[in-house]
């Protein structure tokens, strides 16, 4: 398959692995920002192959995982209203809120529908004037342009029954938070290829300079991931900290201008709570004043029930790269993809789910030996 097979070429991967091993004179600690990259690294066993040369810490880039509990609770609350039809991306459905997930809310009679694009939600609103259609807008800069487009489309169609429950997040402020954390061991970042396709990487130059950390814009296939790691290791060995673009088949320095313009037109930067991080300054976007009519948070008053995080879930530590999923006591015991305690075990982008799914047989044997 074009654009896929050539980036999974086993011989090229082997060559890149050898180059990384030769180039690394010491063990470097890198963070891959995006959950899609985490899955790729585990699926292809890249972390295991580079044990000793590179320590990979999984970053916060799973949009489902960092969506705060209060947003999920709010969405569940809306779904339970008779007048509301809540629309959501599929992998948000099973994420547990304080009391229920959207899937559970639906089974209890809540109105929830899975969509693939915010524009589908606008179409639903056009077809169902008797319902208030709310789109649960989550995700990084990758999904924000489509949400912006949906609001504009709703305005163009004169729809009064469409709104967004906005929980969009921005990736760079979280990277800054991590870089400022005194316990942060990260020496270089693999920046998220999809996010950079939208926002570009111009704004990472100052970050790399300020924190003396190399940033390599990286894709998701094994050849991409290995090239990104090699680029990062190469900079570290040379004592440099600049921005490289490994994912040039998709990413331009200035990003996608039209998408950025759309985001700017509809949204403005705001502080936002992230699950596991607390409030991240400038960590999110919300609807601008002139688009407030489409803000579900304003349209629907909210019952403020307390937010309850499960005590045994350490997803916050996982998301901030403080521990690996397997270091959580609940991993694989009380917490599995079937009975998740936290979002990282649910989402296809989540680090815990990736560890669970791709735990190599070698690790299982070790687990079995370690078991009493």
């Amino acid at each position, binding site marked *: 398959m074009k654009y896929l097979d050539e980036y999974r070429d086993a011989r090229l991967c082997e060559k890149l692995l050898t180059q990384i091993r030769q180039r690394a004179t010491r063990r470097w600690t890198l963070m891959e920002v995006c959950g899609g990259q985490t899955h790729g690294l585990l699926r292809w066993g890249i972390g295991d192959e580079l044990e000793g040369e590179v320590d990979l810490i999984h970053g916060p880039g799973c949009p489902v995982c960092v969506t705060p509990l209060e947003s999920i609770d709010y969405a569940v609350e809306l779904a339970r209203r008779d007048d509301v039809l809540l629309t959501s991306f599929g992998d948000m459905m099973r994420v547990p809120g304080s009391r229920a997930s959207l*899937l559970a809310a639906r089974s209890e009679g809540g109105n929830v529908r899975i969509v693939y694009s915010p524009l589908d939600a606008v179409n639903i609103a056009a077809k169902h004037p008797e319902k208030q259609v709310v789109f649960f807008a989550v995700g990084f800069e990758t*999904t924000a342009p489509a949400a912006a487009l949906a609001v504009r489309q709703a305005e163009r169609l004169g729809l009064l029954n469409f709104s967004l429950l906005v929980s969009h997040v921005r990736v760079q402020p979280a990277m800054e938070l991590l870089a400022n954390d005194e316990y942060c061991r990260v020496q270089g970042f693999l920046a998220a290829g999809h996010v950079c396709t939208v926002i570009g990487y111009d704004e990472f130059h100052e970050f790399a300079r300020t924190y003396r950390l190399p940033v390599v814009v990286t894709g998701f296939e094994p050849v991409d991931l290995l090239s990104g790691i090699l680029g990062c290791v190469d900079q570290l060995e040379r004592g440099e900290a600049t921005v490289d673009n490994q994912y040039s088949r998709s990413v331009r320095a200035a990003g996608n201008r039209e998408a950025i313009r759309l985001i700017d037109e509809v949204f403005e930067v705001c502080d936002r709570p992230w699950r596991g991080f607390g409030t991240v300054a400038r960590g999110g976007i919300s609807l601008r004043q002139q688009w407030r009519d489409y803000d579900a948070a304003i349209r629907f008053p909210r019952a403020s029930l307390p937010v309850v995080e499960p005590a045994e879930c350490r997803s916050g530590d996982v998301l901030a790269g403080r521990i690996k999923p397997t270091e959580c006591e609940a991993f694989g015991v009380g917490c599995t993809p079937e009975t998740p305690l936290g979002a990282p075990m649910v*989402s296809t*982008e989540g680090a815990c789910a990736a560890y669970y799914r791709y735990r*190599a047989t070698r690790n*299982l044997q070790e687990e079995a030996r370690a078991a009493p």
Partner: protein
Amino acid sequence: MSQQPRSWACPVVKDESDRITLAHGEGRRATRLLIRDGIVPPLDNPLLRALGDATSLPRVDGPIVMTTDSFVISPLFFPGGDIGSLAVNGTVNDLAVAGARPRWISLAMIIEEGLPSETLSHVVRSVAEAARTAGVEVVTGDTKVVPRGAADKLFINTTGIGELVTPAPPGPSAIQADDELIVSGPIGQHGVAVMAVRDELGLDPVPESDCAALVEAVAALRAGDVPIRAMRDATRGGVAAVLHEWAEDCQLTLSVDEPSLPISPEVRGTCELLGIDPIHMANEGTMLVAVERGWGAAAVEVLRSEPVASGATLIGRAVDRQLVPVLIRRENGREFPLDEPTGAILPRIC
């Protein structure tokens, strides 16, 4: 994304005037006419013609096999089939993989008030055609009409009866280490086709469901004297679900080689896009077969002689029990546990 698929269109004529009403379900003249003129003619056979409350079937030698299944698919029509062909093939395949020659099926339909009559006719014609292809006769049936909202357009139940052909395959608990595993064709076609149409993914080309009867494929294996341990059509939960059930039955580990899995470019592309795995997607005319060690290649050759199994492929084997019941060996030679499918398949955000 909201565009209708271009290369596939629902074949139903949208004549809004002629619809099934509650009167059709009240057991009087309207019902009789619906059954006599609308349903029976395409299905016609001597056993059905009597139109009694029950049908006596001819005597058969040896044990008979019986199965039942209900079909509630939405949308009713999808690329490669519809609820009618599905209702026949689903039941026929359950009989075939149990080692039986399917002979007779029943057809019970629960119709939501307001269903266009033409839709019903289309489905019944489709039942008739699928039954003919599979070599079964529809010998009895039932029709109920329920008020709007009490059902989703049309539900179908079919019960099937077949003659057991001896020797019957011993079943999954007889699988031994080094037995070989074969799938009869490309996997995930049905699940992806239905998802593409139901969720209006706007794919071009739209993947086609594999909905088909496996009768001839099973007969070919038998004619080829292939020593079969077990057969199962890989419906809900896909090939992964069957592997897990079998591993539990035989208490061995089943190991599958991912690069060998037959997957069409459309299914592969769609699954990559949505972050789902074809091995978890439903099939409706594709089975998993376990054969004695050394027979894998021969079984594949025999299967490929039948159109319904022309994509048959050796995908793995049974090994001594390891820590996990099902292993999948990825392209790079690394082995991972293969998850048992759980609940709904939920596409990812980005």
